């Protein structure tokens, strides 16, 4: 009757290894998702000076809006830490939105080919940021659920897997139900 404890031992080890590997995979997925957000944020920071350069000739009456975009970009580039960064990026998103809203009043501007393609690039980047954030938050939720539920929490506490932080949503995203799931 030696084989009963042997089978139990093998099963326990297999579960142990499987769970540990899953936790590692989830943690790496979060890191990768965070990296995705950063890539897109960087891309947006790079696009904005081009946009301002093209737009400013047309929008001489809207200096205030343009200045706000430039300032928001400056704050976002120099922001340190996840919370401050999220706040600055959300402010930048808002300022860009008001810029595009104002641009609707300038038919010449909308007809300009390079403005149109810059606007498409920025819209794409905005979307990529928000989808990257969505994927990041979903990944965090899966990871946190796993390390906090029984029985995988045992392994998580032994190997010090800590819960990850969500990327805080901006004001405009508060209505999205997914944000309340935590």
């Amino acid at each position, binding site marked *: 009757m030696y084989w009963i404890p042997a089978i139990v031992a093998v099963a326990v080890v297999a579960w142990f290894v499987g769970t540990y590997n899953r936790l590692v995979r989830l943690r790496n*997925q979060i890191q990768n998702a965070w990296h995705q957000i950063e890539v897109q944020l960087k891309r947006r920071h790079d696009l904005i000076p081009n946009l301002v350069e093209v737009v400013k000739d047309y929008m001489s009456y809207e200096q205030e809006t343009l200045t706000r975009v430039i300032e928001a970009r400056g704050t976002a580039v120099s922001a340190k830490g996840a919370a401050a960064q999220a706040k600055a990026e959300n402010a930048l998103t808002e300022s860009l939105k008001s810029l595009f809203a104002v641009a609707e009043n300038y038919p010449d501007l909308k007809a300009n080919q390079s403005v149109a393609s810059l606007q498409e690039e920025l819209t*794409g980047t905005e979307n990529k940021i928000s*989808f990257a954030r*969505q994927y990041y938050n979903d990944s965090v939720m899966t990871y946190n659920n796993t390390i906090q539920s029984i029985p995988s929490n045992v392994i998580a506490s032994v190997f010090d897997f800590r819960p990850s932080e969500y990327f805080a949503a901006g004001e405009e995203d508060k209505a999205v139900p997914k944000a309340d799931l935590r």
Partner: protein
Amino acid sequence: MGGDHACPKCGTQNPADAAYCNLCQEPFAHKGVSSFAGAPKGTNGAAAPALRHVPMLPFNEAAASNVRMSRLLFFLLLVAFLGLGGVIGKTYGSLELGLSLTLILYAILASTAYFSGSSIVLSIHDAREADSKEHPQLLNVVEEMKIAAGLPMPKVYVMDAQGMNAFAAGRKPEEAAIAVTTGLLSRLSREELQGVIAHEMAHVKSRDTLYNVNAAVLVGAIALLSDLFLRDTFFFRGRGRSGGGGGGRGNVAFLLLGIVFALLAPLAARLLQMSISRQREYHADAAGAEFTRNPLGLASALEKISREGAEVPGENRGTQHLFIVNPLRTFTADSSALMSTHPPTELRIQRLRAMAGEGGKACRER
């Protein structure tokens, strides 16, 4: 959708002559006549086809099931091939020769389908790779959706066609390809395009593309082969008679069997292919909505596609199940469920609307 008959229970718009609510199955007592499958006009007919619950598998389980299904497909086809080869071989006198020839044929076919299925499908439909100068928005939207899905960037292709359609191919997410028609690009808004691409990305992530492409190439090839066989049968029979020898009456039974087999094989393969892809369409619709968090984008795209036509270059029966909307047939609620590659587009739209909480709340709570 042209609905002017709101369901009293859940508020869904139904066709004026519907006897039952399309979404929650609530009967409209004595108010109309069923226009659903099998009900003779003028009777208070059978219930609407039930909106069966579509199980939302996690992607890794859906992918594992697609890998299993693909293996099963290759295995069943091997069995069918050997059976067919045996019958043909016996008909013409040499069982061993028939078996070994079909085995070789199978090996060629199966490896072609597995290793270059996607490029075959792409070239059948005249797809060319999308250029970042020509289609910046398309590439942006695809990149957005690959981020939302957490996948590597697929290759993006464009088909020059007026019809509005799209499909995805590729054995695994790392080799995925997404193709859309220029008609789709020119007539969909950004939001709608996003919905379509998200649907295709869901097919990629759940590896529906593996199974679908394999089925497309194998089913296409088997249909071609049995066509050949049928023609050969008549050809050989004619020659045998004029030669005055060989064959004889003993072979007639085998000949009949061979014909039956050759007729049934592609039919069975096609039924298999169809019964599976309908579930996948609902699943990809729902999973795509999870990526965009906006089911209405796809709903409105599907509405436009069904209104303006979904023809694509090189459309054929072998690949029809790959597309987001079937390019060969339009599916209404009456379409016989078993023979369809896709669920009725209007039911897909209703499900998507219900996900967004439009006119379907009461039903979802049940």
